[in-house]
């Protein structure tokens, strides 16, 4: 045991009817990100730096729901959030309500490293970003045609639900391929979370974790989910690093990321047992997934949702990219 390990995710809860090309694109992106992380780990880059650089890549790619390609708010804009945590001293940084910062995860890192606080949001966070000289873009940059289409479907699904109180089968544009699977109470074809995250343990046994997202499609402005909340979407300690994705409210109630470490610390479970335990016992009716690494070089993914976009690799040569069970 020992050595470095890395895992990445692109969201828990996948539409079973997801077209093959899209599945392939996702796997390629996950593979590319894993490889980026592996190259860095082999050159002794620290866990926290690897987490940041991998998530930057995921944010920059428009495929998943973070940075460019983020889900849209009810007003058609993008509001992003992210958090990062360094297990060694449990230092952390988080941001919410980000609208013009190209890489929210890097802003979260700056909050951790360059501010006296742990969490900055909305205009205060944007001001801080400008003072730090991070890359700023227009909000349009983050908006993709795919998501504009999705927002429209989401609004229709919401209005159907509201008016007819029936399960959202056959909403306009998705009739032929709709499945009864729901996420956040709404059709998975529209509401798949696709939050991104990365967890790393480096050659020195240091763990780190990070998560980044655009949040829920058609969300109320100002809605904050689990991704920027330390203990919910992200957590890292001396023992492990964890990043979660799925139904935000369920993850917050479960303090999911913290609990993985807590059961290791307080019940003496190992990483696999801890992940299995929290997925089984802490989610109640909610659906979510997580990736985790331990200071012993182990990596584990766990989810109770319908699939999770994920990839993991360890120093001894193991590598896997997957979507389904």
């Amino acid at each position, binding site marked *: 045991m020992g050595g470095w390990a890395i895992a990445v995710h692109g969201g828990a809860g996948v539409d079973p009817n997801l077209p093959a090309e899209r599945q392939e694109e996702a796997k390629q992106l996950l593979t590319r990100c894993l490889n980026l992380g592996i190259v860095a780990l082999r050159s002794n880059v620290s866990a926290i730096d690897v987490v940041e650089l991998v998530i930057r890549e995921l944010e920059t790619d428009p495929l998943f729901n973070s940075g460019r390609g983020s889900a849209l708010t009810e007003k058609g804009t993008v509001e992003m959030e992210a958090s990062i945590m360094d297990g060694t001293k*449990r*230092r*952390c940084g*988080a941001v*919410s*309500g980000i609208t013009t910062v190209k890489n929210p995860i890097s802003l979260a890192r700056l909050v951790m490293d360059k*501010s*006296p*606080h*742990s*969490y*900055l*949001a*909305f*205009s*205060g*966070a944007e*001001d*801080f970003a400008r003072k730090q000289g991070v890359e700023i873009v227009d909000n349009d940059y983050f908006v993709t045609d795919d998501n504009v289409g999705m927002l429209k479907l989401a609004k229709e699904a919401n209005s159907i639900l509201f008016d007819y109180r029936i399960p959202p089968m056959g909403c306009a544009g998705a009739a032929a391929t709709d499945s009864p699977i729901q996420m*956040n*109470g709404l059709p998975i074809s529209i509401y798949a979370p696709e939050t991104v995250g990365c967890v790393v343990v480096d050659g020195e046994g240091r763990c780190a974790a990070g998560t980044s997202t655009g949040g829920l499609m058609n*969300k*109320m*402005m*100002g*809605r*904050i*989910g689990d991704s920027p*909340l*330390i*203990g*919910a979407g992200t*957590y890292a300690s001396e023992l492990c690093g964890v990043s979660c994705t799925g139904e*935000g*409210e369920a993850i*917050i*109630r*479960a*303090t999911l990321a*913290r*609990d993985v470490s*807590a*059961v290791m610390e*307080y*019940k003496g479970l190992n990483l696999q047992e801890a992940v299995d335990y929290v997925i089984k016992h802490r989610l*109640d009716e909610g659906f979510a997934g997580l990736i985790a690494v331990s200071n012993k070089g182990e990596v584990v993914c766990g989810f109770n949702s319908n699939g999770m976009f994920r990839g993991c690799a360890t120093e001894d040569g193991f590598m896997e990219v997957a979507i389904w069970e």
Partner: protein
Amino acid sequence: MVGWAIALHGGAGDIPIDLPEERRIPREIALRHCLDLGVSALKSGKPPLDVAELVVRELENHPDFNAGKGSVLTTQGTVEMEASIMEGKTKRCGAVSGLTTVVNPISLARLVMEKTPHIYLAFDAAEAFARAHGVETVDSSHFITPENVARLKQAKEFNRVQLDYTAPTPPKELENCGDSQIGTVGCVAVDSAGNLASATSTGGYVNKMVGRIGDTPVIGAGTYANHLCAVSATGKGEEIIRGTVARDVAALMDYKGLSLTEAAAYVVDQSVPRGSCGLVAVSAKGEVTMPFNTTGMFRACATEDGYSEIAIWPNN
């Protein structure tokens, strides 16, 4: 057969032992008043969620605590309030941040929990949500007290002095910035059926950056409740977030089988640095504990068997 219990706090921090009477007595009276309110509510069968909310509303309305009226100021001299509430049985929760005109942030947090599919709303959107629901709002000058304007001035001076001085410690008169308006307010309650609830509210950290969010609205940090206990924490927000304080009390009870008192003491001793944190907690069995690792913590508690306590400094 277990009874009800309630505990509330008005902030933990470096409360000087020589706090002048005119600063100490009004707060003690307020703690007594809030405790009595909470106890009557529990005795009349009000659910703990309602009790926690009404006590925190009362503390928010009182200008001598750092929540609602009397909130400390941001570096720009404005008020940005945040709060969260959690119901133990269902683990439903609600949180708000960045409020500037809402008279009772804790009630808005409750509304988020009950009237939206979400848990946490913040800043402009939270304010808009408040208006859309007819929640009481006032001009933000309502929340600003002369004491806090002075506190901000002192804090800025302290920062400037820290930069200018080569000596490691600043002059004595500038040391006690934020004296007794530190922390937060909170209330935890349990009824005889073991239903638990926690509520916490704050103006945050004096001279904080605009947009800074602390532990108070972060479920698992400043507030937590489940079937075992309800916890509300206060102190240095950044440390409480890192230490996932409120959640850890419950986790220690759950995963290590510690009692409420042991779990709370452990967290305050081990999970956060000295001088950074205090909390109040009640268990499903009607127990209560109020540990802190700071100089003092404004606090009060009562249990059905007749025990009650109002205090500021350690009991010994």
